[in-house]
């Protein structure tokens, strides 16, 4: 019942916001987000819930990602109230409906234990965010949304083929369990056909990988994140990519249970390293701050699948990293959104002296810089440390070395741009010519996320570590 409510509350609110726009779409947006978060917290008290004959079920991994999505959505929804008032007259019902629709479909992804349901949820997220990307209705956003639709639709089509191949790998009858139900596939993993399972993995990796934006399937990412409104980029980089990672992780957990590691692990490690390397290469000399963050997202998606492929404590690190990445990425995207809103551009050279004009957002930017690059004492330091540890522990010391070198390059590239924006002198820069300062309501939500990502670096509460451990063991790893 609770699981269905989690999906139906935002879905109903989306419909209401569209039908009765004057009635209070803003109240619906924040209200539904708050109710959703309350229900998610209720879920932590009653683990193991399921609905629709096991097609919807909650487990540690799904619960962690769902909580992340719910927290991020509430923060973004609160931010949206202020942002839309500032930015445009287009803050129409379609925008609010699509946001709530995104929440409903992302929830479906995290709760699905049936691969077709999971796929439907994933496809719905694509369709829900497309109008959000096109929010500004100009040429650049049109180009971005077209690229996004074509690439992610092809990706998601491949993922569907992957799901069919998964079904083909499963023997019929009692030997294989119910078709495409996650728990049954894990329980009867030894009966799965390895040839079809490998084929399924390849297509799912391409499919969900293009949704995650791992290299070389990331072509849409800088364009979309660069053009979409800050809060939309935030929602995509924090919540959408985490859901796509979850989809991939579900299939990978089946592959591990069926013992096709020899094929799956090298692929994940290879694509992971390649993504981090591509991100580093394109971050050096990048001129646009939102595109810089997009490549940072490519980097962290690479780290996630790398950690998944490494196994051992890497699995634990992967889930923790998904959590940290989501919080930090949304926070920094919202902060950059504030700056871009005032400066009217996201070209870094035109933005100077943020500290003087917008002290709140400036602090957020600097904190965000250290948070997303994995500096202590932020949460991402712990997860990146765990991942590097896993590389050494699982006998891939060269992976650890390569990752550390690339992460250092990325830190320098990001610091160079962001510190210059914050502390740089405002000579001839357009940013300071335009009136505008911090709006308190636009600083509150990212500030809260900054506190959360700091808290995760200092102290992990017991229920969370328990959930992380059980998620790690579901992904063929263990707690450190």
């Amino acid at each position: 019942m609770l699981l269905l409510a989690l999906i139906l509350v935002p879905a109903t609110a989306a419909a209401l916001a569209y039908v009765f726009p004057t009635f209070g779409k803003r109240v619906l947006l924040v209200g539904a987000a708050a109710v959703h978060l309350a229900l998610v917290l209720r879920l932590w008290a009653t683990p193991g819930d399921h609905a629709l004959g096991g097609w919807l079920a909650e487990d540690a991994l799904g619960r962690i990602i769902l909580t992340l999505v719910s927290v991020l959505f509430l923060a973004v929804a609160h931010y949206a109230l202020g942002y839309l008032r500032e930015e445009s007259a287009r803050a129409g019902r379609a925008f609010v409906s699509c946001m709530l629709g995104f929440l409903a479909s992302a929830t479906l992804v995290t709760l699905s234990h049936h691969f077709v349901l999971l796929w439907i949820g994933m496809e719905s997220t694509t369709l829900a965010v497309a109008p959000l990307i096109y929010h500004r209705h100009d040429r650049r956003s049109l180009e971005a949304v077209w690229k996004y639709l074509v690439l992610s639709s092809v990706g998601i089509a491949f993922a569907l083929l992957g799901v069919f191949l998964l079904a083909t790998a499963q023997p019929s009858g009692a030997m294989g369990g119910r078709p495409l139900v996650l728990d049954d596939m894990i329980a009867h993993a030894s009966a799965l056909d390895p040839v079809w399972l490998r084929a399924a993995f390849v297509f799912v990796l391409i499919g969900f990988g293009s949704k995650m934006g791992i290299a070389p399937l990331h072509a849409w990412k800088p364009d979309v994140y660069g053009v979409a409104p800050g809060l939309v980029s935030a929602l995509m980089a924090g919540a959408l990519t985490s859901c796509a990672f979850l989809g991939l992780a579900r299939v990978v957990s089946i592959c591990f249970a069926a013992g096709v590691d020899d094929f799956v692990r090298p692929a994940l490690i290879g694509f992971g390293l390649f993504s981090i390397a591509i991100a580093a290469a394109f971050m050096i000399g990048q001129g646009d701050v939102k595109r810089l963050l997009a490549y940072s997202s490519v980097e962290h998606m690479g780290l996630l699948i790398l950690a998944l492929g490494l196994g051992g404590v890497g699995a634990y690190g992967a889930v923790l990293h998904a959590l940290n990445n989501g919080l930090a990425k949304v926070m920094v995207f919202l902060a950059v959104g504030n700056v871009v809103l005032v400066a009217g551009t996201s070209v870094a050279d035109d933005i100077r002296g943020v500290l003087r004009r917008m002290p709140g957002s400036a602090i957020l930017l600097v904190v965000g810089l250290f948070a997303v690059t994995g500096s202590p004492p932020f949460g991402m330091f712990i997860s990146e440390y765990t991942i590097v540890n896993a590389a050494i522990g699982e006998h891939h010391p060269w992976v650890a070395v390569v990752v550390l070198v690339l992460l250092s390059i990325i830190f320098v590239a990001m610091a160079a741009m962001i510190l210059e924006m914050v502390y740089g002198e405002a000579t001839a820069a357009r940013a300071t010519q335009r009136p505008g300062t911090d709006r308190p309501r636009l600083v509150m939500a990212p500030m809260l996320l900054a506190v959360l990502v700091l808290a995760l670096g200092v102290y992990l509460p017991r229920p969370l570590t328990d959930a992380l451990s059980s998620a790690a063991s579901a992904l063929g790893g263990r707690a450190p």
Partner: protein
Amino acid sequence: MTPLADLVLLLVVLSDFAVLATSRLSACIRAIAFQGMLLGSLPLLLHPGMALHTVTLAAGTMVIKAGVLPWFLRWAIREAAVRREVEPLIGYMASLILGAAALAVAFVVATALPLHVVGTDLLVPVALVTVMIGLIVLTTRSKAITQVVGYLMLENGIYLFGLTQLQRVPFLVEVGVLLDVFVGVFIMGIVVFHINREFDSISAARLTELHD
């Protein structure tokens, strides 16, 4: 199994090549509509017996893939006053040679795959070749609307593969495919319309402002 099903599958391949070879947009859409009709008839041919499930699937597929979607594409062309040529990035001959290569690859791969569930031997290779030709159309045609046609073919190929699992995996699969093709193409169609209004042409090749 049934010679009729084999014949229909061969016609599907033929319609794939028709899309590759034609220079006229309207012919492209006719070919894709014809393909939708063929796909709709397949559940009935592969699983005779007129079970409610197969009949609904067949009817739904025909209505959407052979009726609604082609109608929608024609509407977009008319409303947006698109020029009638396909405008490929590579020549028609090169497209056909690529298609032939895809056909060969599909048959080689399909014989190597251990699939025991299917009634006819042709289903898997035809599914693969349709997916590949869909990808070729998607990547080598410059107009946004022809890219939509390519995407539709890709989905058609996946649908064909899905037919191998028709008896085992629940009804939901087919609903998912039909629904998502419908919604996906609907939204894509609207974007195509906007692209045309904005750029005075629906050539996706003009979309080049965003780059590093």
